[in-house]
């Protein structure tokens, strides 16, 4: 009788341990977040909200002096937590090395915008710009720009004013380094995110 009770107790403990593991696993999965592809989307929209006709010239990328262009830079945060994002705008030409998955362009930055973007939300930053004047110290054309009300004179010139590039890069704040880093932290390391719009100075 005593041996039977002892055996029953041992059997009870073995089953208790097994069921505890099984039900605890179910509880763990019930408490866990559903897996999802983490990313941050980045887009430049024309004044009419489209992804085309940026220059209002039937698509031709020619910008005249005094012509104001109102673009919207949109960040879509699907990374799983709120982000402090920075959009770095650079001016480049035909010889500029474009950004890559791992590093920014080798061009001077002419504008920066910082914005907090909650997870699951889209945030928009205005990019209103125009060419105030041009100068031709040599073969190259240099621009005097106004961007979001600020005057900027990039040290980048283009032959005959052709082949300028506006490079938009997404940077995100990393707590560990206490600074903005190029791209965002993806599932397998940092992911570069950038956009380039070409234009010619039609003066």
């Amino acid at each position: 009788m005593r041996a039977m009770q002892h055996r029953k107790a041992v059997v009870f403990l073995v089953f208790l341990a097994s069921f505890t593991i099984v039900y605890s696993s179910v509880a763990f999965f019930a408490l866990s977040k559903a897996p999802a592809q983490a990313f941050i989307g980045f887009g430049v929209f024309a004044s009419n909200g489209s992804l085309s006709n940026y220059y209002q010239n039937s698509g031709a990328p020619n910008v005249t002096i005094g012509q104001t262009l109102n673009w919207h830079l949109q960040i879509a945060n699907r990374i799983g937590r709120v982000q402090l994002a920075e959009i770095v705008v650079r001016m480049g030409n035909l010889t500029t090395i474009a950004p890559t998955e791992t590093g920014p362009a080798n061009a001077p930055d002419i504008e920066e915008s910082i914005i907090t973007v909650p997870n699951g939300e889209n945030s928009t930053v205005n990019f209103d710009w125009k060419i105030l004047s041009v100068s031709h110290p040599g073969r190259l054309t240099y621009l005097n720009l106004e961007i979001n009300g600020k005057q900027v004179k990039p040290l980048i010139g283009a032959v005959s004013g052709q082949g300028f590039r506006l490079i938009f890069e997404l940077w995100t704040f990393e707590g560990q380094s206490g600074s903005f880093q190029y791209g965002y932290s993806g599932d397998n390391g940092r992911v570069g995110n950038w956009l380039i719009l070409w234009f010619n100075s039609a003066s």
Partner: protein
Amino acid sequence: MVIFASLPKTGSSQPNTPADAWSKIVKAFSTLQTADTDGAPHESIVTLSNQLNTALAYYNNATILAAQNNTAAADKYSTLSINISTNVASEAKTLDDTARNQQLARQELAYGTAFVLAVVSAALVVEVDRIQRLFRKKRTVRIERESS
């Protein structure tokens, strides 16, 4: 005997610079991100993010004015930014504490329920023959009652 003491000027402090404002924004953002990761309500995170964007706008004005050597105006905007950032940091901390407590309570309930179910399941398995005998006895009594 009367002792005269020089009272400290109330409200006198070092002016807030754009660098101070940025430091507060970073701190507020870090606290907000921690609260978000710990499960704070999405609507609250959105509200505090909008406030932090206002702080960023003031900070942006401060840096522009500082670049124009307008230190007084730059410090004024820095102060405005700092006030908002400080509030965001404080509210985010409260949200984080609440979220962590709720998360702990959810975990305790989930794993506690799992353990109770495990006990009940193990007991049912061990006592299955006794339960079968009990059901057989009840069925016999019911049949005898129906036949009489």
